[in-house]
């Protein structure tokens, strides 16, 4: 009996397990293609495998960040334009504590945890007072204040102002230079754990109330739910995850650019879940992979005009896959025709306006 249930759980999650297997084997397989034995990969001696691991680590971090945005926007329906602050606070705090204050890694992550909670409470303060687009603008304001702080020359000693935070010494056992394979598996493990936690959360009674709030907050209220606490819980989990992603970002990247505190970085999260599918956890993962690989591939093979083509691809995705990749997959209908109609409609109005 126990064997049967185990088997059926495995079967239900075969897609996930397969993906996991791919990511576990990825560094070694890439090594083999370039003539490096698994042992060499294990000792971080294969340059090409290390490069791919690096790209994957970036994807894992982006996926964590996108998951955290999907929780508040996709599941709870809170449109925040200040999400980059959650990430940037994590990134800068990690860098500054490690570099300027000589904190240990454990103590740093303890502080990250606290910072995550404080940030959620900060957003929580305005939560009952503003809704919808006003909430988006207030959170944008808060994030902008942080952005200004980060690039200010007064704090340059700590933040590196507009140059970015450099020279963070990462503990040797997790260093991206000498122990990249370990860092790869650490970030992968964190991503898996967070993903499972999120899955649990959105399928829990609390998660269902969040979905209900997204759909219609009034109806959730009249069932007797104090919706504020549910929104705060989602914000809390989201900001903790984003801060964690920011911390990992600092550990992996040699330099923390102030761009991660800007509006553009919030848009990155939004874009990733739009590509993958708003309100689907798998979508955040798929979106992160597509987003990073597109960006990397276009930059490498096309160069300067990459962002233009990138933009065109995103517009196409929104037109043809309005529910994102995972969302469309679930609906099992591509409906290309509608996409064309939308595109033609758009061009039509554009030409009429001339």
């Amino acid at each position, binding site marked *: 009996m126990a064997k049967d249930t185990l088997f059926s759980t495995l079967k239900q999650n075969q897609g996930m397990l397969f993906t996991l297997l791919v990511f576990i084997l990825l560094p070694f397989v890439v090594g083999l293609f370039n003539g490096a034995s698994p042992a060499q990969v294990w000792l971080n001696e294969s340059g090409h495998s290390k490069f791919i691991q690096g790209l994957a680590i970036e994807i894992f971090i982006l996926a964590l960040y996108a998951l955290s945005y999907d929780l508040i926007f996709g599941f709870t329906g809170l449109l925040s334009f200040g999400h980059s602050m959650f990430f940037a606070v994590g990134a800068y705090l990690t860098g500054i504590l490690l570099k300027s204050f000589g904190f240990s890694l454990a103590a740093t992550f303890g502080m990250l945890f606290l910072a995550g909670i404080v940030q959620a409470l900060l957003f929580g303060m305005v939560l009952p007072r503003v809704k919808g687009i006003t909430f988006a603008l207030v959170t944008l304001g808060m994030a902008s204040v942080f952005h200004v702080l980060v690039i200010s020359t007064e704090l340059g000693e700590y933040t590196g102002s507009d140059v970015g935070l450099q020279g963070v010494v990462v503990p040797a056992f997790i260093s991206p230079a000498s122990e990249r394979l370990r860092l790869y598996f650490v970030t992968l493990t964190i991503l898996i754990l967070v993903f499972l936690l999120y899955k649990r959360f959105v399928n829990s*009674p609390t998660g*269902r109330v969040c979905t*209900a709030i997204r*759909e219609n907050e*009034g109806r959730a209220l*009249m069932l*007797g739910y104090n919706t504020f606490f549910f929104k705060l819980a989602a914000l809390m989990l989201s900001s903790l995850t984003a801060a964690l992603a920011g911390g990992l970002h600092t550990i992996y990247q040699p330099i923390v650019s102030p761009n991660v505190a800007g509006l553009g970085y919030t848009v990155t999260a939004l874009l990733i879940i739009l590509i993958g599918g708003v309100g689907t956890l798998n979508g955040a993962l798929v979106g992160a992979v597509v987003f990073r690989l597109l960006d990397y591939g276009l930059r490498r093979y096309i160069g300067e005009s990459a962002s233009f083509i990138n933009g065109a691809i995103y517009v196409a995705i929104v037109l043809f896959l309005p529910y994102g990749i995972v969302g469309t997959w679930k609906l099992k209908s591509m409906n290309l025709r509608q996409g064309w109609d939308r595109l033609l409609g758009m061009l039509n109005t554009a030409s009429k306006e001339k």
Partner: protein
Amino acid sequence: MDYLLDVQDIHTFIGQYHILQGVDVRVPKGSITALLGRNGAGKTTTLKSILGLTPPRQGRVIFEDRAIQGMHSFDIASLGIGFVPEHRAIFRDLSVEENLKIAERKKDDYVRKRDFIFSLFPDLKRLISLSGTNLSGGQQQMLAIARALVADNRLLLIDEPSEGLAPVLIEQLMKAILQLSAESTVVLVEQNFLVASQLAEYYVIIEEGRSVKEGKMKDLINDKDTIHRYLGAA
């Protein structure tokens, strides 16, 4: 008489508009009371004011000997008041079962009430795993009422249950409402006088934000003058 709900002279504003200008509603325990009146008279606003969704600025709302005006909506609902809003306000992104489970106020409310709910609305049992989007209008209305039955609600406020439903469905719904009124007290807003007159034991007529007449439904049915004056031709 023993009143479960006693609304005393409430005044409610929406924005700058003085919508309710003195509404009294007394609801005897275990009865069905219908709020009657023309479109825009303030019937729905009365329900919303009871629940604190549009809090009354003046007057008192007494539920089980406790003044509840000015409390938060979610606290009022938690006292044991279920609200079935008009337009079949279910959660379309949740399945039928999730829609019911979300209404739990105590652990396992749903498991305890399941049999009763499915005896009233056998259709829902069949549709249990379907998402709210895929239900027909009638099924959505049944689900909206069923949702209010999950928790131990002593009072149910039902807004326009028959609106936009086919006659066959209205009959089915009326049967269900009569059955559930054995378990809890019901306040009903109903445009369709025929439906209201067959369901309710008591009535309150609301006209331009004021309660103008109340009494027993069986007296009203024969009172053609009142019906004509306040409810139009019926």
